[in-house]
């Protein structure tokens, strides 16, 4: 064992620190307000921002410990009420640290509920999964009626472009979208460091950074959807990304050798999609620039 390997487990990391956050966005006249903001443990939203005007509420999820150690569990519940519009992001990468030798899994469970007539953009920065981690991450999105969603999940296995590769451990990712209570999309991606999925072309194709972007297109007709898909494909180019529209859902899967580059591709794509999917102008959350 070298010092660099040991350094992947920060000495100051707190032990087993469960955290939960319950948020509700509501439409109040012209304004989207944060009507509920309850937290347990270190995860929180300090205050809502309205950089684009009163109708759209920006929330930054802050988690000062910065990551998950063995036995940690983060629960996020966000309820977007009728007519509300929320943009949620994080100030920095999430981290799933190296698990203790006998440690339990590190879990993050997010549930987003989007009411009829609500809009929600879910744009967290990437999650870095350290070597020897045992991460379990789920994102469950429940959409009613004309509710709209645009968002992504982005993960990087190992750190710093190959300096600390993901040689052991596992990550299980789950993305579920339901519409009016019925399954719309279910993706479960179990990744074990020793699995052939890491290098196989049907798996991660040897690339440590992966992402899925999803957006609802129920408000667009067939030809509008086709046009949008063509634009997305033009933006993506190349072979490490694939875009499709199935059952009124835009789905883009991306693989990249570099997490930073992947983040820029996603941010550009999001900006491009925002007018058609969310009826508002492209904008960049200020916190991404810091």
């Amino acid at each position, binding site marked *: 064992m070298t010092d660099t390997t040991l350094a992947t487990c920060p000495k100051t990391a707190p032990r087993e620190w469960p955290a939960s956050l319950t948020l509700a966005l509501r439409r109040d006249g012209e304004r989207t307000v944060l009507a509920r903001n309850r937290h347990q443990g270190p995860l929180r939203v300090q205050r809502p921002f309205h950089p684009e005007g009163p109708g759209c509420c920006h929330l930054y999820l802050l988690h000062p410990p910065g990551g998950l150690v063995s036995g940690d569990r983060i629960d996020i519940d966000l309820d977007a009420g009728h007519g509300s519009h929320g943009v949620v992001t994080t100030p920095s990468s999430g981290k799933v640290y190296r698990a203790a030798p006998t440690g339990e899994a590190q879990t993050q469970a997010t549930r987003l509920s989007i009411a009829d007539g609500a809009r929600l953009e879910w744009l967290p920065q990437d999650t870095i999964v350290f070597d020897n981690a045992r991460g379990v991450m789920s994102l469950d999105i429940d959409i009613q009626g004309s509710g709209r969603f645009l968002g992504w999940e982005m993960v990087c296995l190992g750190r710093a472009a190959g300096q600390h590769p993901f040689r052991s451990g596992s990550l299980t990712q789950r993305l579920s979208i339901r519409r009016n209570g019925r*399954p719309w*999309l*279910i993706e479960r991606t179990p990744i074990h460091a020793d699995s052939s999925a890491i290098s*196989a072309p049907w798996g991660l194709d040897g690339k440590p950074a992966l992402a899925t972007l999803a957006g609802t297109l129920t408000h667009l007709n067939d030809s509008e959807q086709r046009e949008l898909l063509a634009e997305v494909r033009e933006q993506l180019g190349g072979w490490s990304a*694939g875009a499709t529209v199935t059952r009124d859902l835009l789905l883009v899967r991306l693989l990249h050798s570099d997490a930073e580059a992947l983040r820029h591709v996603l941010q550009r794509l999001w900006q491009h999609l925002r007018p058609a999917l969310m009826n508002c102008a492209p904008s960049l959350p200020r916190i991404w620039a810091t």
Partner: protein
Amino acid sequence: MSTALTAAITTTDTGLDELALVRLLHLVSPALPIGAFAWSQGLESVIDNGVATDADSIERWVGGILRHNLTHLDLPLLLRLHCCALHQDVAALEYWNDYALASRETHELYQEDTQLGRALWQLLKRLEIRTHWTGTDEPISLLTTFAEAAVHARVPARATAIGWLWSWLENQMAVACKALPLGQTDAQRILQHLMPEVPACIERAAALNDDELGASYPGFAIVCSNHETQYSRLFRS
């Protein structure tokens, strides 16, 4: 025929009697008129993009999809749907049908599953085979109709899963023979290599809990998405 041999044939793990076996062979035949030959599930795309260029790389691709995607999704879903049809549990049948459809990663994979599912369902109707599926205009997965047909034919669950895998494997080889083209003998050799893995895949699939279902990877979804814009195509997925 010795009694020992008779016993070996009639009491295999799959519990398949002779009429059921004939009906299973009918169901998995490439000649079944549902149009399965028109779909490649991304294989044509990896042949086009240079990932699969010869017998070895075809075997690696098909073997990988078999061990991961199919073993963790299609097979356990098929076993569940078979159980639902056997016990005439229509609500659960609809639940797992929804689950299967939501698990199709791309437009073409969804089209493939629902068009084949619909085609087999219509064939069963024309053959006056009664099914439990009631959602006449609702999209139906091929897994659901296949399970229904197998239950009607009194084919037990594991034999149904073996039949399903076999028809998938054979179809993938047919795709490779047309699109690469892969030689007939090479295709037979790949089948010979992968056949011994089938029982273990069924075993693993049968042991999965509901929360362990699914193995969708970006590589496969990207390949299948990009098939939608492939310049020259023989297959519809």
